[in-house]
């Protein structure tokens, strides 16, 4: 067990597992937040339902935080080890198929930006100003109001756009890499897996991006 975790192969299993937790979460988070496109009340009611279910809330939070901590620690260890293994870099850059894709070459970089994004996102919303509203007679946090406030600022919308595109890149490589790390690659499905990774990333990143854009544009039209 210890030697498994110390091995490069074992670390990649854990990297994949922790990435999978987040890859699954971002889809659910994106899908749920789509309610903001329908109505602020629906969005608030949806958010309230989630935070009211303490088991679900804390369970998810514990899973996400531990997965993120593991993912980041392993990312640092593996990136360091891989740099050392490479040693001298080449003077000339490869091209064509022999070169690594943009997404795969820069995993540690866009991953780090995603980390900064996750923290700033939590500070902005989860730990941001608490407004209250009443939906169907129930008093709850008015997160929709905060969202409208934040995304009336084009700078914030831009930062979300950039971060979410990078998350998309991280996912395109991450999702297909999981299959290899977990040993699930099979000759017949190899191209399908690659495509599925791209589609999944576009759905997640595209879905997320639509939300600040929608808020910003409807705001701009209303104002």
């Amino acid at each position, binding site marked *: 067990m210890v030697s498994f975790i110390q091995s*490069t192969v074992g670390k990649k299993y854990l990297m994949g597992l922790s990435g999978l937790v987040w890859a699954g979460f971002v889809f659910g988070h994106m899908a749920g937040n789509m309610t903001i496109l329908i109505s602020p009340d629906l969005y608030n009611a949806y958010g309230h339902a989630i935070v009211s279910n303490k088991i679900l809330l804390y369970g998810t939070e514990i899973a996400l935080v531990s997965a993120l901590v593991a993912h980041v620690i392993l990312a640092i260890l593996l990136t360091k080890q891989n740099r050392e293994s490479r040693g001298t870099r080449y003077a000339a850059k490869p091209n064509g198929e022999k070169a690594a894709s943009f997404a795969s070459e820069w995993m540690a970089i866009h991953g780090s930006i995603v980390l900064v994004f996750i923290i700033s996102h939590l500070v902005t919303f989860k730990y941001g100003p608490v407004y209250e509203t009443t939906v169907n007679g129930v008093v709850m946090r008015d997160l929709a109001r905060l969202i409208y406030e934040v995304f009336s600022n084009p700078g914030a919308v831009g930062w979300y756009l950039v971060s979410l595109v990078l998350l998309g890149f991280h996912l395109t490589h991450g999702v297909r890499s999981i299959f290899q790390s*977990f040993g699930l690659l099979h000759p017949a499905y190899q191209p399908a897996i690659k495509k599925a990774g791209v589609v999944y990333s576009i759905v997640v990143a595209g879905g997320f991006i639509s939300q600040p854009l929608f808020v910003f544009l409807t705001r701009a039209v209303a104002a």
Partner: protein
Amino acid sequence: MSGKNINITLKVWRQKNQREAGAFKEYVAKNVSTDASFLEMLDAVNEELISKGDDPIAFDHDCREGICGSCGFMINGNAHGPLKSTTVCQLHMRNFNDGDFLTLEPWRAQAFPLIKDLTVDRSALDRIIRSGGYISVNTGNAPDGNAIMIPKTAADEAFNAATCIGCGACVASCKNASAALFTSAKISHLGLLPQGAVEGEKRALNMVGQMDKEGFGACTSTGSCSASCPKDISLVNIARMNRDYMKASFSKKPETHAGDGA
């Protein structure tokens, strides 16, 4: 096919040995026949260097038929040059144009110490083989052909993996200098066949262990290895290696003898 002649400028990594610092040096290969192989072109450059009393460029080669795995260096950042499924000895000058500028660098990896110029020490790969790249069989008369049934698909996959010539291009082209493609090819080649499956778990544990010990990096699934591999070894082998290693790690049983139990 009658070829024409071209001129090529080469920027070659020259380094006497590990202790002395190396540097790039430029050479012009004049009047190169496009029918020549890349190594024949270098031979001609070396002839000229020798005639001038200079030290020839050291590079590894043996069969020059693409089967031994001795040759290999980077051409403009690509392992074994710009073509796919080719060793540098099977790369011909007709794939280049008059006036091309080519940077030649040795395989680079912490686990491949430089010997001289374009030659590196790849014995780390041999040590991975030694750690488990074999099967244990009794010697004696040759068994009957087909006495052991092997599914065609398993034989195909094992044979594909067995075409790995151990050149090290996978390590050289990987941004992490990972030897996952090489190691997994050996693990698949033996583990897919009934004779090799017996020691499959031990093999996966030992070969991955040796691979890590040699200081190769972790696979991040970039696919550069497979694209640079002269034998097109598939990434599917790496997945199989990971699976075998995982299974072996969690099902490892100590060896016991009759009477050990209470």
